[in-house]
């Protein structure tokens, strides 16, 4: 037995330890061969996703849209990005699903069945922008680690559920409540039952907003399994990682929630800006709250060729985290001049906004159409990459598409 095989055996032993059973004939297994039980089927079929979606990772599942797929006002499931940190729970039976509210700052611990939630609290529906904190990570230099999202980890679906606030009021919250943290039914990648893949949360001020929902429907139907069925916490405008899927438990904390991926460099930015690549201590990192202003040209698809003399209709969406977008502009000369787009109001707070424009080009040739949104506080999208950070969060640099006039 050579060293390589010894390595293989040790790895198998470790793997067997992880999944808690012996792998029969493990020693003869090919290097790194994944036992059949661990293989997964076609994710596009499995999750009802359009084949044009881009698969970034198959374990855990991570998939993003492309700009032109996000043209609908309300994002349908087939174009909604998937960001999973662990293993999707298996669910055949949800009739006995319970949501428990606990923590240091509840007056009493209380549990609700799905029908309790639906019958005892008023339903509300909002269209909510959910963007992964790491959307745009792929552009950072030096490269930031994690899934290399380009532009497609954003969606704006319609969510229906009950207000978290109404449920918290029913439970009774003490005055020292600071934060809520969620706990889901997903498994850590190692299947270690004592480890949560992710357990994040929001401060009470965000938890108590009208639009912060315990949702049971997406786009008028049961939430698809991969997006959190049967219950999902949905807090629009913040990194989508606070919108916990497969929601089992909400803890009302008397301190900042300290669950998995609340600490270290996860979903945190340098409190004070650092140079690209600079090493920074975890103590100097601050939790991301609202997402920054951003926009996406969803029509036409990049690569459009148009005959000279014709004009081009463009459209897309703009959003600004907790805020609204106040102004939308485009440029066909790399920012030398900006022209206004028409911009619609959001259907509700925290929903993205439609923009459109009609563009005339002065002569034949290669152009890029750049789009720039400005929020109601006057902050705009930068044309180049914003501040570098270890995990490549919050890249809200202007989106652009290539066009040719022929």
């Amino acid at each position, binding site marked *: 037995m050579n060293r390589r095989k010894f390595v293989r055996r040790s790895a198998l032993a470790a793997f067997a330890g992880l999944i808690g059973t012996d792998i029969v004939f493990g020693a003869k297994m090919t290097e790194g061969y994944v036992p059949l039980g661990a293989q997964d089927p076609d994710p596009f079929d499995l999750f009802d996703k359009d084949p044009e979606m881009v698969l970034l990772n198959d374990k855990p599942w991570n998939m993003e849209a492309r700009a032109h797929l996000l043209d609908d006002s309300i994002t349908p499931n087939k174009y909604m990005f998937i960001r999973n940190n662990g293993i999707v729970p298996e669910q055949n039976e949800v009739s006995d699903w319970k949501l428990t509210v606990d923590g240091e700052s509840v007056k009493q611990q209380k549990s609700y069945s799905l029908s309790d939630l639906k019958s005892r609290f008023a339903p509300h529906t909002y269209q909510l922008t959910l963007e992964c904190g790491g959307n745009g990570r792929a552009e950072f230099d030096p490269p930031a680690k994690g899934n290399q999202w380009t532009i497609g980890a954003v969606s704006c679906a319609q969510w229906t559920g009950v207000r978290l606030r109404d449920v918290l009021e029913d439970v009774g919250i003490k005055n020292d409540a600071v934060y809520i943290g969620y706990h889901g039914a997903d498994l850590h990648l190692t299947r270690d039952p004592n480890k949560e893949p992710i357990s994040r949360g929001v401060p009470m001020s965000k938890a108590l907003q009208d639009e912060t929902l315990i949702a049971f429907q997406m786009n008028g139907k049961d939430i698809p399994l991969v997006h959190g069925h049967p219950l999902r916490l949905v807090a629009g405008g913040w990194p989508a990682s606070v919108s916990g899927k497969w929601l089992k438990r909400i803890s009302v904390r008397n301190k900042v929630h300290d669950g998995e991926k609340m600490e270290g460099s996860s979903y945190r930015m340098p409190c004070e800006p650092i140079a690209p690549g600079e090493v920074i201590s975890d103590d100097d990192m601050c939790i991301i709250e609202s997402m920054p202003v951003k926009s996406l040209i969803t029509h036409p698809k990049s690569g459009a*060729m148009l005959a000279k003399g014709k004009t081009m209709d463009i459209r897309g969406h703009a959003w600004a985290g907790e805020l609204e977008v106040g102004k939308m502009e485009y440029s066909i000369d790399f920012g030398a001049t900006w022209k206004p787009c028409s911009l619609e109001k959001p259907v509700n707070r925290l929903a993205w906004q439609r923009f459109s424009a009609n563009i005339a080009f002065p002569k034949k040739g290669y152009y890029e159409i750049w789009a720039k949104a400005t929020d109601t506080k006057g902050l705009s999208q930068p044309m180049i990459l914003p501040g570098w950070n270890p995990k490549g969060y919050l890249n809200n640099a202007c989106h652009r598409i290539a066009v040719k006039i022929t």
Partner: protein
Amino acid sequence: MASQKKFWQWSRGTYRFLIVLCASVLIISIIMFYKYGDELHWDAKEKDTYIETPENDTERIENGIHLRTGLKEGVGLTETINNCTTCHSAKLVTQNRMDRERWTATIRWMQKTQNLWDLGPNEEIIVNYLVTNYPPGKKGRRENLDNVEWYELKN
């Protein structure tokens, strides 16, 4: 009395012999197993399993890519497959580009927070593999738009 003592001496000798014999058999078989363990076929069933493992298909390397995982061919590929593709798929590795310091920091982070085991002497082999095959490239503050698929726009 005398015959009893004689019997006792005789049986002590026999036991000693048996102990030495057992110990040597054990040591020899451990050595044999270590040296030839992989060539031994324990039974017909295992032989079948061996033949059926997808060594020929999915473990194939084509154009420098290990087909099943998508990892690049290179020194340390086996160690990397064995240690880096059990929790998550290799896609999480191949998507990333880091220097030695940051690959090592990523391993430390997984060891601290994600149940990754001590890699022992394999750590150096794996980090060398990662830095050689997945080093950071220069992107600057904004890259050109590439891979544009041109098409005629119909209004």
